């Protein structure tokens, strides 16, 4: 064994990496120089120096920062849920399918649903995301495309109770649904990071299912399942 050749090879890798552009992403913001600050402000570099000298000076001494958004996939299962009350019938499929049982639903008769007509009104719809593991089984269980995963991840809190998403929270927050298990959104190239879906009709199937589809779903499938079970 010759000492040194192996070491030199390793150093070669290090040298090669030194010359490559950095792979690390600075988050949530990164330092910029004068040119970077001008680009972020949307003006030319001389324009920045003459019109906003203080900003240019800050950039020179390394105080100027620009926000960085990490690259995420549209399927990213984020931690705020997107929920459309008009689509929800209160069937609690999500609550039953949740491995942790963290979805609480209370209903009373008298609601109207887009797909089923006369339905239940949702009195309570709580998701305790402090215990959620974001497996997205609830999203798969939802037969009416009412519940979607979110797309954000910054939800640090000082109080655990604030991690319980109530019906009011879900209705109030901006709706950036993830495209996970929502092929209809992927088909039209929806990106939750740029767009909002406020209209519940855009979020999923919105017309009444046909009689054939309902028959297939509730009668034929069950027959096959029964046959399989026997």
């Amino acid at each position, binding site marked *: 064994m010759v000492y040194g050749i192996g070491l030199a090879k390793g150093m070669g890798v290090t040298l090669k990496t030194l010359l490559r552009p950095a792979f690390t992403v600075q988050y949530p913001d990164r330092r910029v120089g004068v040119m970077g600050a001008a680009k972020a402000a949307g003006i030319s570099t001389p324009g920045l120096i003459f019109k906003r000298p203080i900003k240019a000076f800050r950039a020179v001494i390394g105080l100027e920062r620009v926000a960085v958004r990490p690259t995420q996939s549209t399927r990213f299962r984020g931690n705020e849920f997107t929920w459309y009350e008009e689509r929800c019938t209160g069937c609690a499929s999500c609550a039953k*399918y949740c491995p942790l049982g963290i979805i609480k639903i209370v209903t009373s008769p008298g609601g109207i649903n887009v797909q089923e007509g006369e339905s239940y009104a949702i009195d309570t719809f709580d998701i305790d995301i402090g215990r959620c593991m974001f497996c997205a089984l609830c999203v798969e269980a939802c037969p009416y495309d009412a519940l979607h995963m979110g797309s954000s991840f910054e939800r640090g809190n000082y109080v655990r109770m604030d991690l319980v998403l109530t019906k009011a929270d879900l209705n109030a927050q901006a709706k950036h649904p993830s495209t996970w298990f929502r092929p209809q959104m992927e088909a039209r190239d929806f990106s939750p990071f740029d767009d909002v879906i406020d209209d519940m009709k855009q979020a999923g199937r919105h017309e009444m299912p046909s009689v054939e589809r309902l028959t297939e779903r509730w009668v034929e499938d069950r027959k096959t399942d029964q046959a399989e079970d026997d």
Partner: protein
Amino acid sequence: MNGFGNVSGARGLTALSGSESPPSPGSEPGTVDMMVNMGPQHPATHGVFRMELRVDGERVLDLVPHIGYLHRGSEKLCEHELYSQIITLFDRLDYVSNFNNELVLVTAVEKLMSVEPPPRAELIRIIMCEFNRIASHLLFYGTFAIDMGAMTPVLYNFRDREKVQALFESVSGARMMHNYFRVGGVKQDVDADFAARALTLCDDLERGVDDSDRLLSENAIFIERTSGIGVISGEAALDWGLSGPVLRASGVPYDVRVEEPYSRYAELDFGVPVGSAGDCWDRFYVRILEARESIGIIRQAIALMEPGETMARVRQIARPPAGEVYAHCENPRGDLGVYIVSDGGERPYRLKVRPPSFCNLQALRDLTVGHYIADAVVILGTLDIVLGEVDR
């Protein structure tokens, strides 16, 4: 070292009475055997694992492993969950190769239900599993180098692993706990640009594995630290029930993908790298070669991919018939098996996991005794245990 005999046990050092009596004042300084607790918070134990070492100076005389610090009762939990919910629990067994864990569960349930997943779904599964194998091995090269005091490789390997995880995110929506495989296929088809991205990633990973190879394999210090350390023969390895790269480094060409091909591995052409000496260097280098084979498998699988269905026609809530089934798959760490007893319900009556890390850990005492304390860290590193799987 007389003084060590008086240090209290609470600090992790205990003098043992018996083997040699402490020397009387004024005479030649003698030695006493010492008990050293390594872990559960020791960074080199790769998790919450405790080794009780009896040492004579730097030499390890005896080693007692203590496990169970991460016990979550996964197997018992599985008895109360639907089969589709169990997949989320399997993600958390070996938390650096999640796809491989999911695969073994869905394979077992499919075997029990006699369900055949569509060919496209099987290829997506294979691609994901092989990427995960490479990601897991990349993590191994890095942490193994850290165990020996080399900081550089782990940074490079995390860089490459990050690219793999970005691909995982675009496929399954999560970077680690994917919950993507289902009984009868995969949950959602991959993007249209998946094949192109995967092939680019293959080139990147090839370079990444080559980087690790160049950084470590021929490094004189690395060779001094690993060759001839923790040697186990092929027969002994089989007797201990070792599997995976640890077994193959001892020259036994046993790979579940070849011996009992599952999924569509029988159609793919790949080699099974084996070592000869069965020491730490071989266990490291087998994993380098294995990662390269995995890249070859991915390229073949992408070439075979055709558009089509990704889910067989099965109920969302699987209900296998009464009976029992055992299925095992080749994990990055070895032969992961799952045994399911079904009473015909929606939940398993009993579920048992055969974790490769746990079985490989058995040999730790035999491998370590006689070596130095610093080598104990290296040997544990080459076994590449994940405590989530050891303790379940």
